[in-house]
């Protein structure tokens, strides 16, 4: 009775197989075209919304399959895409201003499966269509911004502490502060050291040199990416995309995936633009110079939309970072497009102070946009940053500003809307460049799924046929094992909520070919033992026993290469690495335990049985 598993082992294997089968099931139910409403700016999701939208849809002659209310969204399922599109338009007309209305393909997993937490795999962009962007955060610019902030803070601090200084300049990653004499320098150094922990200071004659610490630089880099991710997420939400992916990749890159989006131009305009605003006072004390060299200290020369020079004070009152909300609308008096802005606490305070002191003086709004240009110079690719700064509006301050105020003088309602959107989603901490873009049309996605699974099914059937003819009963066992292996892979991928890509499907297909190797090793060993005259029962025992070391070795080597694949690339190929790795590991389990269990079940009790192999 050597070829028998103890009862607990059989039960354990059967339990795993049952669970694997159940949790792989959601992948076979397809998807419902649906519309999702997610609340924007303080709107609520409640049963009333469901009743209302149900009524609105009924009026439009639509019969949704189901309404699903969750914490984050209301999902309305439809039978076909036509109904989905009409419904989206209808809902947008009613709720467009309070909710983000997005098209979605919601998995049609039956309720009982959803109750036990079973969900299908997430389909990658190459299978469902959409846009993929990879963005690089411009760290150099982030650090420059931080240095500028520090320079400004140093000026303010010295002024507030009544310490006289000659100049504060930023130059090649250091900030140089010049003083009249060594005494004031010492005084200033003490004050600055106390207040600015992120800087290290050194002195030379009457100049104090400040430099950011390494820890501070690291922190700024980290924050630059983190803040960009947050900002991009907000912007994507504004775009109304269901299930977007926004994640950091490596040290300074961010991946944004927008399933189902086809209009890349608009997506890019919104995602890639790094526009921000600055509010500055107009310098009315000096005449406006004709060129930059004659700009007085403490002021900077700008141009307005018509190209006319405007002299503004260097001091920034408020930047885009301090804006909490912005909306577009029409100005009451003139009826022209305007953007209504709400500032955060510190911003509002600063704005209030400045405007109080400067009533009847002009204030300017500067619009700053970052652009990139890559040129080839002598075979080398050189990317130059270009910052476009223009004064979009100058208005006389009539009264002390409160938290909320408006900017008018924009080119039209479209511009007002775009500007409001950019401001609302926050200025990016550092400029980002799109370094990779992939667009897959929805029909190509469907085609990819079809071809992927077709090659899988054909591959599987070919393997199964050959196994059946070559190993008879044992072939049947191997094929069942293979089937379980695929179920197990799908279940694990689903449980991990991994993203399935076309190379991922290829990984599963390939695993079928490779996983069956373990069965082949065992069976060939059994055949050999039989040829050597061993009794069937001992042959089975020896076959499994001796093949194990070999199976182990061959799996480990396959695993080494598969794991190395994780290190490179993103998206699709990572999907291949994931499925292959999981497939190799699961096949070790299925080939050894499931095969053994079935062989035991068929032959374990029969002493003199002839093996059909």
């Amino acid at each position, binding site marked *: 009775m050597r070829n028998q598993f103890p009862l607990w082992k059989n039960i354990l294997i059967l339990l795993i197989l049952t669970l694997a089968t159940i949790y792989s099931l959601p992948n076979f139910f397809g998807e419902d075209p649906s519309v999702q409403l997610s609340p924007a700016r303080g709107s609520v999701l409640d049963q009333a919304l469901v009743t209302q939208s149900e009524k609105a849809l009924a009026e439009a002659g639509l019969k949704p399959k189901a309404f699903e209310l969750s914490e984050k969204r209301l999902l309305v399922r439809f039978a076909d895409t036509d109904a989905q599109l009409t419904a989206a338009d209808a809902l947008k007309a009613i709720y467009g201003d309070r909710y983000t209305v997005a098209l979605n393909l919601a998995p049609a997993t039956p309720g009982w499966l959803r109750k036990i937490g079973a969900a299908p795999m997430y389909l990658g962009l190459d299978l469902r269509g959409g846009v993929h962007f990879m963005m690089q955060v411009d760290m150099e610019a982030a650090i420059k911004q931080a240095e500028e902030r520090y320079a400004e803070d140093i000026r303010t601090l010295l002024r507030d502490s009544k310490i006289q200084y000659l100049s504060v300049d930023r130059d090649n990653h250091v900030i140089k502060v010049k003083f009249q004499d060594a005494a004031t320098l010492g005084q200033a150094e003490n004050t600055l050291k106390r207040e600015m922990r992120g800087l290290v200071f050194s002195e030379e004659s009457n100049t104090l040199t400040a430099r950011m610490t390494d820890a501070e630089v690291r922190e700024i880099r980290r924050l630059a990416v983190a803040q960009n991710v947050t900002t991009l997420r907000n912007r994507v939400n504004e775009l109304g995309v269901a299930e977007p992916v926004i994640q950091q990749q490596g040290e300074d890159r961010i991946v944004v995936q927008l399933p189902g989006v086809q209009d890349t131009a608009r997506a890019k305009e919104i995602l890639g633009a790094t526009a921000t605003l600055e509010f500055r006072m107009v310098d009315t004390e000096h005449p406006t110079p004709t060129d930059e060299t004659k700009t007085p200290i403490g002021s900077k020369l700008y141009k307005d939309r018509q190209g006319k020079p405007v002299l503004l004070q260097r001091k920034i009152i408020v930047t885009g970072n301090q804006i909490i909300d912005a909306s577009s609308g029409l100005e009451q008096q003139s009826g022209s497009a305007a953007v209504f802005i709400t500032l955060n606490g510190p911003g509002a305070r600063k704005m209030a102070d400045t405007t109080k002191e400067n009533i009847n003086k002009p204030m300017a709004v500067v619009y700053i946009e970052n652009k990139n240009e890559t040129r080839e110079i002598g075979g080398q690719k050189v990317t130059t940053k270009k910052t476009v700064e223009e004064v979009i509006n100058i208005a006389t301050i009539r009264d002390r500003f409160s938290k909320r105020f408006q900017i008018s003088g924009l080119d039209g309602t479209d511009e007002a809307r775009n500007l409001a959107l950019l401001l609302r989603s926050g200025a990016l901490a550092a400029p980002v460049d*799109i370094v990779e*873009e992939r667009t897959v049309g929805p029909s190509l996605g469907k085609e990819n799924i079809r071809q992927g699974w077709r090659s899988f099914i054909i591959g599987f059937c070919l393997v199964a046929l*050959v196994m059946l003819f070559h190993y008879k009963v044992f072939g049947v066992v191997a094929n069942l094992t293979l089937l379980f292996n695929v179920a197990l892979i799908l279940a694990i991928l689903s449980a991990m909520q991994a993203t399935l890509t076309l190379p991922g499907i290829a990984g599963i297909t390939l695993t079928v070919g490779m996983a069956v190797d373990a069965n082949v090793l065992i069976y060939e060993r059994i055949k050999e033992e039989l040829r050597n005259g061993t009794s069937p029962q001992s042959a089975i025992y020896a076959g499994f026993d001796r093949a194990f070391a070999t199976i182990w070795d061959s799996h480990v080597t396959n695993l080494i290469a598969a794991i190395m694949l994780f290190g490179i690339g993103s998206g699709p190929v990572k999907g291949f690495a994931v499925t292959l790795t999981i497939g190799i590991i699961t096949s070790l389990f299925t080939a050894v335990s499931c095969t053994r269990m079935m062989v035991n079940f068929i032959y374990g009790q029969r002493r003199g049985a002839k093996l059909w192999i």
Partner: protein
Amino acid sequence: MSAQNPAARTLNIDFMKWRGVAVIASLVLSLLAIISLGWHGLNFAVDFTGGTVIEAKYADAPDLNEIRSNLEEVGFTSPTVQNFGTTRDVLIRLAPLDKESGEAGNALREKVVEALNKDPALKPEIHRMEFVGPQVGDDLVEGSVIALIASAFFIVLYVAWRFEYRFALGAILATLHDITMILGFFSLLQLDFDLTVFAAVLTIMGYSLNDTIVVFDRIRENFRKIRRADALDVINISINETLGRTLMTSFLTFLTAVAMAIWGGDVLHNFGLALVVGIFVGTYSSIYVATALAYKLGISRADMLVPEKEGATDVSP
């Protein structure tokens, strides 16, 4: 089924007799592959080079030359425009050019669309568009090279630890031989070498080694079991014993690879093809390259007598 001497097999091919021929064949083919790689190089896809690829479907077969000249008109230098699949499907490749990264990428798409829509009667549907910045491509090349080297390193380490350094050398040479062959094949036929093909190359690295290890495992076992045969005989017997399994497994994996190459569509076609080539040379190399080198380096029974802690501890014949 009568009791037989373990040395007497149904199969008894003298593989090692042909090792001289095999070595020459391998050397010639490897040289050819290397020459081709040096001459043509690989036809790297946008993943690695950076640039833009667009797949467009037209209602009627368009004039490729016209598309080409339209693209040149808006400023793209030497665009590649070709059919794939049907005459209505057009694949356009644009080299990375100035102003392509970042914000300017916005304008790029518009420019391409403008050029493609120049003749409104032929409005295409854009199925796929990929833009890869030069920096991303460079990073990918770097990552790939590191992955290859790291895989090779860990494989040598594992085989040396599990078996013996001579086996490790044989295994890694066989692996490099296989990779050279696949790369040579892709270079010679100037097939698109993209990231998925590279994934296939890495997979073959593990896979070919798998075959090699099975043979090595048996050689080790037989060295302990068969006392009176010399090394060459033991190797021959081991190869013959594992031949059934080697051929069977290779054939089965080959079937799945063929399924992908034929029915998997454009993306999986080259991936499947790389696997098919890899499986062929991998099977061959595990018999000839790996074992022949291990033999040449003087593998003998004495090296195998220390029983390992796992696996084939059954020393009695």
